[in-house]
């Protein structure tokens, strides 16, 4: 690695340093309390997957280049220079971490591994060593935001084709639109994923609750966040913010996508609209009596996987359980409790990388399989696209014999006529 590249990468490192990052870089005592926190370590048993070990790969660079000590006595803290080999270590650490932040619950100081891994991810982008597909997907999202007119027609045609399926599940009044798009002054802007499964059940429930809603032109998923690029993350988020402001909506509802929800909820800043997950919105409808659910629809035992970004990192923990209480008498929660829930193993962009990471994803999430199996449930509900894909892969791989379902689609299936 030449000096110019090294300086550029270290500038990227510097750009990530803020107060919290300094805390995380300065404080670790390597006490090892986080050892049993990571699902990858627990499933595969390799030391390199312990949270503190991952931290140290980033911290060694910090000690070397951002602390005088690293120059005077590098061996004292094992400070290490930046080389091509370091980049490989950074890749290994960052792209085996799903950013679930379970280790943050264990750490006596609350060190955020996801934050430290975001330094690694940004440096990998700088070195063109990140998974290219994630950057390409992020750029496609950004491009769509820039030239909406080009996509508009085909999008609207696609949506029109879905409307009959929505009406099939829930009749609407004459003159109403089953999937409204671009409605100014709507109360709620629903940001879905590309795919009918993310639009139809949600539309059915919105219509049943007589919500004044409109569908976003943009998909919720934020590939910028997966690849750890703050600029792309913001550009992708800003498309939705601009649309919400243009339509003057009161609420932006994010579909079942953990990263999209957390980014919009926690990074969008103060806005004239509130940000909710579809789980919160649907729980609200039940609470307000706007929809009623048929408890006989699902007779099998149901368990629920809390998506890390929505539950532990987003705070939506009671709402899915409230929905499930109204959906079944046969709900069995996972052990341990949501704060300690095992990650499915698919976060941090791993699922988006598809078959490339499949083998690792299967090996690294064995503890998740054991956790689900212990409930003896037949239906495994969740509220995140990534989790759903990963849990389905695990289901096939480990022959778990469960039906993996989106919670929102279960709500749609169990709607009772009012």
């Amino acid at each position: 690695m030449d000096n110019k590249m090294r300086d550029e990468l270290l500038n990227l490192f510097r750009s990530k340093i803020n107060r919290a990052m300094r805390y995380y870089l300065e404080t670790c005592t390597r006490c090892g309390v986080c050892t049993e926190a990571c699902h990858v370590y627990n499933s595969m048993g390799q030391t390199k997957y312990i949270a503190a070990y991952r931290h140290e790969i980033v911290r060694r660079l910090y000690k070397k280049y951002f602390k005088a000590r690293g120059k005077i006595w590098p061996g004292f803290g094992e400070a290490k220079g930046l080389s091509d080999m370091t980049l490989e270590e950074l890749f290994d650490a960052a792209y085996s971490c799903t950013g679930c932040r379970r280790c943050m619950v264990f750490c006596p100081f609350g060190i955020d591994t996801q934050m430290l891994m975001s330094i690694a991810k940004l440096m990998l982008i700088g070195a063109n060593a990140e998974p290219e597909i994630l950057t390409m997907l992020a750029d496609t999202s950004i491009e769509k935001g820039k030239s909406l007119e080009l996509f508009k027609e085909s999008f609207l045609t696609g949506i029109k084709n879905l409307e009959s399926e929505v009406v099939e599940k829930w009749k609407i009044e004459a003159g109403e639109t089953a999937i409204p798009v671009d409605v100014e002054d709507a109360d709620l802007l629903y940001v879905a994923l590309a795919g009918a499964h993310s639009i139809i059940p949600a539309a059915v429930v919105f219509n049943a609750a007589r919500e004044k809603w409109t569908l976003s032109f943009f998909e919720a998923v934020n590939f910028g966040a997966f690849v750890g690029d703050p600029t792309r993350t913001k550009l992708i988020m800003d498309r939705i913010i601009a649309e919400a402001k243009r339509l003057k909506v009161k609420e932006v509802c994010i579909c079942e996508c953990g990263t999209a929800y957390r980014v919009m909820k926690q990074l969008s800043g103060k806005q004239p609209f509130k940000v909710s997950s579809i789980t919160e919105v649907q729980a609200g409808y039940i609470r307000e009596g706007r929809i009623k659910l048929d408890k006989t629809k699902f007779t099998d035992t149901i368990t629920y996987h809390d998506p890390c970004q929505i539950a532990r990192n987003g705070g939506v923990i009671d709402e899915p359980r409230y929905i499930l209480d109204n959906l079944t008498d046969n709900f069995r929660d996972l052990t341990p409790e949501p704060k300690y829930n095992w990650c499915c193993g698919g976060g941090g962009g791993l699922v988006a990388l598809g078959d490339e990471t499949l083998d690792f994803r299967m090996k690294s999430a064995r503890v998740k399989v054991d956790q689900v199996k212990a409930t003896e449930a037949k239906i495994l509900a969740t509220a995140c696209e990534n989790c759903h894909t990963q849990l389905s892969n695990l289901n096939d791989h480990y022959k778990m014999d469960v039906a993996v379902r989106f919670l929102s689609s279960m709500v749609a299936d169990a709607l009772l006529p009012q």
Partner: protein
Amino acid sequence: MQTVYYIVLVPMVYVAFAVFFLGTAIRIVKILREPKNPSTLQIFPEKQPNWLYALSDTFFFPTVRRHKPVLWVFLMTFHVALLFLIIGHVELFQEFKIFQIIPHEVFLGKGFVGLILAITLLFFLFRRFKSPTKELSVPEDYFLLILLFLIVIFGSQMDWARRWYEYGELTVEDYQVYLNSLLYLKPELPYNVTFTGHSFMLVLHVFFANLFLMFFPFSQLMHSFLALPMNKLRRG
């Protein structure tokens, strides 16, 4: 040899305290001047009042209690013993009524506090010899534990000598004269401090303590000050 004693017991102490106070202050100010993280770093479910839980996390380490109960017992014992020793050192300057709520001779704990501290430090050290903590550790971790152990052993030895073996040549009054002279910037080394059989113990104790203070601001020991704001971030 008396020159070495003098250097360790007087100028080095001033240098160590200057490095400790200035270094710590500068480092904390530098950290606090960094911008805040643009988003929350909270973990859910939330418990209110979150500041109270952050205090509890900082001082009682509930996560360690849950996941490594044996380590927690040693950690709590270590930190409480450390607090007792700090009080003991403050009392070496003068008597404070507030510390005498439970009447005691200086130092608190009849010599056992130092012994307990030494045992906990050995535990912390030896657990680092075992996998996987061994793979996580860096030389700094061993160095600081060994340094602390040396400080405690030489310091406690003086306490043990007086308490357990009725060694009377180096008394609390001698320490008070020495420490107050340092405090009032009129350094004075009483004869007993430098010329008794246990003087070398004191010199070694002070020497290692000086090293420790000088390392403090530049090491993980900063967790003493950063643990609370970090736990506050986690609690929201």
